[in-house]
């Protein structure tokens, strides 16, 4: 078990009562504002002493209130990116970045350069934190946590203040950290795309309670979770193996349901990836459509239809051994006569499979598939 | 009600006399004690004092413009003594013997250029040819009581204070009394600052309280 958390804590007017076990990799903490995400992360970092509970990271017990065990924060070796960046105001950016180094081994100049360039903060090294912009501050905070070479990363909405371009630069780095350094990561985010790309496990919190927990592939393609995530965020995650990189910038992948064409992914042929297909980006057709710009057409069978509050219907297809989710209107569902067991085709635009939704599959890495 | 400004070395004796005056006349006595310099400056600034008792004629001279003519007179005299902690051996008044005594600590005196007991003491030592050899070993305090305390605590092996002070401190003994001729005469002048009957009554009462002053070791001047 990479991460095991059991916590009860009471604030006036709010009760946290959670327990979850997460395997190696990225565990996403998901939930509305005020649902208790930061509270959980603080307890893992040792900044909050919960009324009762136990926390184990990679087999190391950090907290066990029953046995009166409570490893102090500095000994927990967490790399925490706070929701409010909390830079040290009296140190310049370089000294902020170097602060955690002393117990992470000797300073590694190459790593420093790599991280600051990736975060686009290499020109800010001599600046005082108070003069940084919001996004710059958050990026320095990320760098500071990464450079401390922690045993576990706690990321509390690390990318909220950043633009899409910058996010797209930071996410692959986190992904590599997860895979190369085998660093367990607890990741708080509102953005399903980020979560889907990174997370092995998803925990959904509501009012301090865990309402759903499981493998990212399952949770994110479960229509029952959709209401927790918001309509736009539903989508299925498929496992796909890279077959070929084409000259025109596309990569061809094999899923259990059929071939997929994606924008070039920078991984070796044979790698297994996790590809997220948002339900709203899928068009259904009873006949195999022709002459469309969309390259990906996956055959499948309707396994369930779920009517939401609005005009939409969430259709779950069995496609090979995987599942595909599609959101269509009630009107379309009727026009196409979609019922359980009906055979149909899912049309997915190549480019609508966003790069951010492709992640290397961590479980597969572990099985030695790579 | 009569307000008396008095040098702090007169505190205890005046308290006793004031109580007696109150008992006899029914007038309240307000006794404000501080250093003579402080009191004199306050009088010059219009302090509401009826009587001034200074520990030194200079400060009485300084306020001469404020006093009721004809009321000034030198009320008391005092003597200067060399003291040591109670169990100390006698010592001869020579530079060598005193210097020997002072190897373990200083000679405690009031400020030798400012506080009357100090200036008298300095004059006496100089008269005896002892000032030059001993000057470097003199620890000066801001009032004579502090010098007395230093000797009483054993911090200073020798001290120069008034005979009146030494009298009431059991932890010290008098080793020698300085010849009155060796220093300017020690005088406590008194004067009325207001021409009220109660002021005059208090002055008269002071003059009549010879026994009390004597009992406290003062010399009462005619």
């Amino acid at each position: 078990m990479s991460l095991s958390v059991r916590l009860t804590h009471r604030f006036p007017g709010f009760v946290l009562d959670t327990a979850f076990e997460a395997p190696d990799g990225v565990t996403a903490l998901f939930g509305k504002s005020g649902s208790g995400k930061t509270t959980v992360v603080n307890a893992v970092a040792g900044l909050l002493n919960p009324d009762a509970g136990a926390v184990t990271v990679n087999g190391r017990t950090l907290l066990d209130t029953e046995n009166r065990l409570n490893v102090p924060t500095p000994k927990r070796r967490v790399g925490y990116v706070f929701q409010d960046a909390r830079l040290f105001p009296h140190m310049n950016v370089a000294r902020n970045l170097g602060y955690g180094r002393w117990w992470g081994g000797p300073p590694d100049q190459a790593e420093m350069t790599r991280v600051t360039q990736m975060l686009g903060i290499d020109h800010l090294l001599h600046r005082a934190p108070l003069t940084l912009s919001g996004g710059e501050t958050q990026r320095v905070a990320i760098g500071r946590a990464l450079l401390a070479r922690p045993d576990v990363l706690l990321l509390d909405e690390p990318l909220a203040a950043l633009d899409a371009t910058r996010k797209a630069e930071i996410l692959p780095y986190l992904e590599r950290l997860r895979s190369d350094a085998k660093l367990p990561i607890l990741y708080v985010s509102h953005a399903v795309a980020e979560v889907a790309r990174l997370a092995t496990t998803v925990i959904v919190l509501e009012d301090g309670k865990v309402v759903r927990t499981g493998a990212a592939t399952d949770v994110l393609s479960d229509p029952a979770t959709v209401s927790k995530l918001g309509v736009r965020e539903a989508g299925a995650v498929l496992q796909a193996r890279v077959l070929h990189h084409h000259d025109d910038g596309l990569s061809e992948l094999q899923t259990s349901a059929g071939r997929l064409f994606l924008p070039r992914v920078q991984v070796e042929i044979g790698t297994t990836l996790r590809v997220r297909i948002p339900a709203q980006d899928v068009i259904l057709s009873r006949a195999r459509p022709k002459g469309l710009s969309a390259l990906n057409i996956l055959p499948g069978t309707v396994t369930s239809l779920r009517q939401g509050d609005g005009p939409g219907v969430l259709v779950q297809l069995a496609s090979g051994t995987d599942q595909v989710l599609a959101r269509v209107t009630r009107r379309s569902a009727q026009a196409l006569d979609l019922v359980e067991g009906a055979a149909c085709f899912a049309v997915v635009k190549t480019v609508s499979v966003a790069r951010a939704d492709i992640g290397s599959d961590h479980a597969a890495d572990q099985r030695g598939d790579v | 009600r009569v307000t008396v400004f008095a040098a702090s070395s007169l505190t205890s004796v005046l308290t006793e006399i004031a109580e007696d005056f109150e008992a006899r006349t029914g007038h309240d006595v307000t006794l404000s004690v501080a250093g003579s310099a402080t009191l004199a400056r306050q009088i010059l600034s219009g302090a509401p004092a009826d009587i001034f008792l200074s520990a030194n004629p200079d400060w009485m001279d300084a306020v001469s413009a404020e006093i009721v003519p004809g009321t000034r007179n030198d009320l008391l005299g005092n003597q200067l003594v060399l003291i040591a902690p109670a169990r100390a051996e006698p010592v001869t008044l020579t530079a060598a013997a005193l210097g020997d005594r002072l190897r373990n600590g200083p000679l405690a005196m009031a400020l030798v250029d400012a506080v009357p007991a100090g200036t008298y003491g300095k004059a006496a030592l100089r008269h005896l040819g002892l000032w030059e050899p001993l000057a470097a070993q003199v620890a000066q305090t801001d009032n004579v009581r502090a010098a007395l305390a230093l000797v009483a605590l054993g911090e200073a092996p020798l001290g120069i204070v008034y005979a009146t002070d030494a009298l009431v401190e059991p932890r010290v003994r008098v080793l020698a009394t300085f010849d009155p001729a060796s220093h300017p005469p020690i005088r406590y002048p008194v004067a009325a600052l207001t021409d009220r009957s109660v002021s005059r009554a208090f002055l008269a009462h002071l003059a009549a309280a010879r026994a009390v002053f004597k009992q406290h070791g003062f010399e009462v001047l005619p």
Partner: protein
Amino acid sequence: MTPLEWEVVSLSLKVSLWATALSLPFGILVALMLARGQFPGKQLLNGIVHLPLILPPVVTGYLLLLTFGRRTPVGAWLEETFGLVLAFRWTGAALAAAIMAFPLMVRAIRLAIEAVDPRIEDAAATLGASRLMVFATITLPLTLPGIIAGAILGFAKAMGEFGATITFVSNIPGETQTLPSAIYTALQVPGGEASVLRLVILSIILAMGALLVSEWLARRVGRRMRGS
């Protein structure tokens, strides 16, 4: 300046600087304990620190004499063990000044420690800094304006201290005669006002200089934080 004045001034500076420098670490420690500590007797410590402010200086000086005099166990022990004599020495004057300045110093530093955002310290702890390290690298530097303020208050107080000093170490020219003692002496003599004035002006010039230096230091510290 006459040679005598010069002696008094340099002695005053020596006493005040030592008093400030030596009491600063203790001041920081006590301020930290009062700001952050939770221990029985905390309010007692708080009270003891304030004592020199509350008591008339003479009493403090007298208590020092009773504690650190050569005839006292503490005084004897200090002399035997460290060869340190306080009574009637400038070292004693420094001690008296330090003790009188201590409550001012502690208050200023404590106030600054209490203003440090504990969330910043938490961040340092997550980065592996032990409590001591957090204190040395985060709390202390962030408290610097308060420490500077405490030091200058302490120094100013030490420059002006009179009652406790003269009671504890008397007035020995060249050894314990600080500026305030010299001023007091001059004030006791009718017509001494002129020399009082000279000495007072000297005091003011020295203290003003120290004040300006401290303000400049504090501005530098502040500027560094707000960005070069």
